[in-house]
């Protein structure tokens, strides 16, 4: 059951405690840039998830042969190779999806969450745990993207799933929901400053929930104040 606990810890870390979007604050550039609608958020989330799982698995698989002095360039090479391959394959076999995600795909290379996970976790842990960590971190990141996308889309254009057919095919046209009608759109929510503001509220909300949780729990041991950290040991 020890293994189970380890995986549970990975889930907890990825989705909440050490969430790449809300706590590690990694990959802010794509996070803030593309979350103006749910569709964009979902597209970037899925692509990041895929690359994160692949890169974590590979980094973990080759970790014995990588000297620590040159590990960063090697990780960058691996991630860049994966993103390029995903881009080429998507262009060839899912051209419609490529059309709508085209700009976001190269952005994944610049997402520090991926190299952060490679460095902090995958390079020190076995393949199974590393790929699972990639999956959980990816889901955690996607959930933040989706929340941000939902709030900004509703505030900005009063719709949900606008343009979902670009990502999911024509059947998704029925998903579009008009929440309320504006005479003119609320621009602030769509433009980058809106992303920063909503993101700030999200982080505040997470911290408030965390505070509530610690207050409810009986004090077990002295709480030491933790800074935001990228590294954690899940042993």
């Amino acid at each position: 059951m020890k293994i189970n606990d380890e995986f549970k810890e990975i889930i907890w870390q990825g989705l909440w405690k050490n969430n790449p979007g809300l706590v590690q604050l990694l990959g802010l550039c794509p996070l803030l840039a593309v979350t103006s609608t749910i569709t964009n958020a979902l597209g970037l989330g899925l692509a990041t998830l895929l690359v994160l799982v692949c890169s974590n698995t590979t980094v973990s698989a080759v970790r014995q042969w990588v000297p620590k002095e040159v590990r960063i360039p090697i990780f960058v090479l691996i991630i860049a190779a994966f993103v390029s391959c995903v881009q080429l394959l998507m262009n060839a076999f899912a051209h419609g999806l490529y059309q709508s995600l085209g700009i976001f795909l190269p952005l994944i290379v610049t997402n520090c969450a991926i190299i952060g996970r490679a460095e902090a976790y995958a390079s020190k842990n076995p393949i199974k745990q590393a790929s699972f960590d990639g999956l959980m971190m990816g889901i955690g990141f996607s959930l933040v993207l989706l929340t941000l996308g939902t709030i900004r889309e509703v505030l900005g254009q009063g719709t949900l799933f606008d343009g979902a057919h670009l990502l999911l095919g024509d059947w998704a046209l029925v998903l579009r929901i008009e929440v309320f009608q504006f005479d003119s759109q609320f621009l602030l929510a769509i433009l980058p400053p809106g992303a920063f503001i909503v993101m700030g509220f999200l982080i505040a909300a997470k911290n408030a929930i965390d505070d509530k949780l610690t207050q409810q729990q009986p004090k077990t041991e002295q709480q030491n104040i933790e800074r935001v950290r990228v590294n954690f040991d899940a042993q």
Partner: protein
Amino acid sequence: MSMSVAISKNSKILALFAISCTAIVGLVNELTKDRIYHQQQKQLLSTLNNIIEAKRYNNELTLDCVKVNSLALGSDKQQTVYLARLNSTPVAAAITAVAPNGYNGNIELIVAMNVDGSINGVRILNHQETPGLGDKIDLAKSNWITSFSGKSLMSQNDSRWAVAKDGGMFDQFTGATITPRAVVAAVKKTALYFKENQNSLFSQKNDCQLTNEVLMSDNEEKTRDDNEN
């Protein structure tokens, strides 16, 4: 001594990884190249068919084009004119053009002109206009762009070719006049260009027949550059 051993060992490992990563990307590129080319041709054709109905012509539209350089099309870069013919008789042409005075830089568009000088359809290919305001030129956001269909230019000083605010026949958007003004001006210039060069365009040497592959990769590079910007 041990330092230089470590350095040479590390650089060998790094080189090995670089070579294998490049090899994998190269291999995937080689495997997907034809399919991607095919997909892009299909994509191009479906864009063209949106503005020139497929039943109106019977030549290979994506393989029948001329490359032109004219400031009348809004930029000093090469633009492409796709030529639609029915049994070798000219029917219409789709001209790529640039509106250089958008609110956020260049707006790339494609204008389909009928041989009688009327406009068959206009689409925006690439733009960075403000979301929610200027981006209504995109068909995905609003059908404003279809208001060009069927219009034609009477003369160079046709005063109807302006946004309503300037006394013309095209609507502007609430909060965004600059964007539609730029598009209207670009379409007008393109229509004028077509009128003046119509005959020579249809009789020039075909630039797309053999060098099409080169052309496509050029386009791809261009879009990538634009995306990075």
